């Protein structure tokens, strides 16, 4: 599973990455977690609020730290 977290580096963006990593480990799902900080690249995905989450090329979340439930759903759908 290819997961990208879009964000310019504020606390929410860091928390999102940490949370996804944590949930993935807890569920035993291997993910390729990447941080996208360049504005140009972030805009390429068309998100207007960060943090944004892109899974396998598709934007699944934008704005605020996603809830644990949501992350678990994404991991379950992809695995």
């Amino acid at each position, binding site marked *: 599973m290819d997961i990208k977290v879009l*964000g*310019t*580096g*504020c606390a*929410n*963006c860091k928390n999102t990455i940490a949370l996804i990593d944590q949930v993935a480990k807890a569920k035993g799902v291997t993910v390729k977690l990447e941080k996208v900080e360049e*504005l*140009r690249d*972030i*805009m390429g995905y*068309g*998100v*207007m*609020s*960060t943090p944004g989450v892109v899974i396998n090329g598709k934007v699944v979340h934008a*704005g*605020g*730290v996603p*809830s644990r439930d949501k992350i678990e759903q994404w991991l379950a759908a992809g695995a």
Partner: protein
Amino acid sequence: MHKFCVALRLLAPLFVFTGMNSITTPLKTWPLRQPLAFLILAVIVWLALYEALTPASEALVAALPVDRTSHLGGALQFFFYDTPKVLMLLTGVVFVMGMINSYFTPERTRALLAGRTEGVANVMAASLGIVTPFCSCSAVPLFIGFVQAGVPLGVTFSFLISAPMVNEVALTLLFGMFGWKVALLYLGLGLSVAIVSGWVIGRLKMEAYLEDWVRDMPRTAAQFEETGMTLADRMQGGFAAVREIVGKVWPYILGGIALGALIHGYVPEDFMASFMGKEAWWSVPLAVLIGVPMYTNAAGVIPIVQALLAKGAALGTVLAFMMSVIALSLPEMIILRKVLKVRLIATFVGVVATGILLVGYVFNAVL
């Protein structure tokens, strides 16, 4: 108490129905399965608790070995009354705003603003800035997203000015600690600064001063599809907002009220009037100037506001200070530098600072 009992009797049938269907499901998720019932119940409980605050705070002070009429007694009662009051107000308002925010997403706001003529659009943008969720790190993606969809530059600025400045936390805290008139004033003045500043910047036709790569970005369509959120989904948004905002801001509130309580009880009046009172014409520009490099969130600036007001600073000066701290911040300018050329940033700061200045003066003159 009477209102509470009456309400319970009216709601009893609803409880029986819920109980029969959910004997085995966990208690925790019932608000999401019966959103309307939860909301009605929440309002009633909230109102009942609110009414109980004054008697409860008095009772608490009476139980302590302190003379109620002393400085300490007065300060304590203030603290015991104001802390839960402000926290309750904030929780309620943030929850409702969280639900409203789930409706006014940046995408919807953008669709509402794209291609409209300036003037009306500035008013709409400033108003939408209040109800659209905004985190300062999203300022840039949001700015670009608006520009790409054809929202005029001045309109985008109206939004960018009002969104961080006129937010529900600032308004609720002002209301809870200084009364509805001050809150309403801040709302009105904040919107005016946002509308006029944005309009002025639009008239200046400074599109050339956007960074080149922003102007070269492909146009996107502003249409937007309904995501079909249910009431329960929006409630979850409300809960998340409360956890995030109240969870982050409560230490500031406690600190602010404690400071207010101390001032209330101990510091002499008119301490600050000498250099922040109405007579000193330079107090407003000074306040705005001090505010620009400072940045704290809306909750953090309230203790300062409280101290200034209590000690004789003029209300216009203090509001000007508060606005300039929140609306103009060095961190935000640094982030905006990625998308705006220096001249446009300078214009932005200049126009907004002037607007806030005028607001401060007018207000001091009128009151």
